[in-house]
């Protein structure tokens, strides 16, 4: 028995030590016994779903879809199959090489957009700046220095095939 100094009431030993636990237990009990929240949430699953899901997951991860295949007895066939496959690759590879090369440009813009839409890349401005190569252009050259006419003409001369098409007035620069 524990005595309070200010009054003569007593509490059982350890009463306050486990008070919180007992209170929480009681609240929980009351919540569950009097709650109007349904005990089940009404979801169901297709028949045999849990039996069928394991082989599906196994085939996508370990490559074992349930049945164990003996690799050893088929070894000789694999060499033959590999040889035939190699011939096919060689023949088709040589014939189709010039026509079936898929390049980045072949991707439809919609597909590229869809990729960026569905994948959160989270690239910030600095990361983006790192991705863009500025090897041939010094940013300060563009921002701080005025380009003089001679340099512009020189640049156009080097990069434009037919400079006459630009209809420049040469008299200004002669």
């Amino acid at each position, binding site marked *: 028995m524990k005595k309070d100094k200010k009054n003569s009431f007593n509490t059982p030993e350890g009463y306050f030590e486990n008070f919180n636990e007992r209170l*929480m237990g009681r*609240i929980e009990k009351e*919540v569950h016994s009097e*709650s*109007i*929240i*349904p005990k*089940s*949430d*009404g*979801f*169901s*699953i*297709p028949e045999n*779903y*849990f039996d069928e*899901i*394991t082989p*599906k*997951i*196994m085939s*996508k*991860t*370990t490559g*074992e879809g349930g049945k164990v295949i003996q690799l050893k007895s088929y070894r000789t066939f694999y060499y033959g199959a590999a040889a035939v496959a190699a011939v096919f690759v060689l023949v088709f590879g040589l014939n189709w090489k010039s026509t079936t090369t898929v390049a980045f440009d072949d991707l439809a813009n919609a597909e590229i957009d869809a990729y960026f*839409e*569905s994948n*959160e890349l989270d690239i910030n401005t600095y990361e983006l700046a790192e991705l863009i190569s500025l090897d041939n252009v010094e940013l300060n050259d563009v921002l701080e220095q005025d380009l003089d006419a001679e340099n512009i003409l020189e640049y156009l001369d080097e990069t434009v095939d037919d400079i006459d098409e630009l209809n420049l007035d040469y008299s200004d620069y002669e």
Partner: protein
Amino acid sequence: MIAEEALVKELKQKESRAKAFEVLVNTYKERLYWHIRRIVLDHDDTDDVLQNTFIKVYKNIDGFKGESKLYSWLYRIATNESLTFLKQKSKKADISDEELKNRMVENLQSDVYFEGDEIQLKLQKALATLPDKQKLVFTMKYFQEMKYEDISEVLETSVGALKASYHLAVKKIESYLKED
């Protein structure tokens, strides 16, 4: 848990990995299914997310340090996969997260794998109004009957905060269900 430690050890060894992984899948598939289902609601979506979860677990098993329990690591991956799935879904449909949640509940009415009555449908509507974390705490405690200590490991939140969150969720749901 010794059995869990042994399983993790087998999962990390190449020779025993496949067999140990099958044990892991069989042990946790049902629990993780229901955990995911209560987040994404639709069975087919749950099936996708469950498979993705196990694929992720398989790919990252070497990175599992054993600092937390195996099951809480699995639950964390399943939770993240489910929430990411919903985020991508709302992004694809170009709608807000709230709008997606409302649509998901509406779709339950025509879902062949939802056998709930009016009160269970109303419960889902009430759950859709809760913040993600509060909803998670409620479903993990109320339907999955997980211990607060276990939920605490999965959600990385203190037991005290979880208890407060749970009781707040119960109050909100009850008052929603009492509304006409």
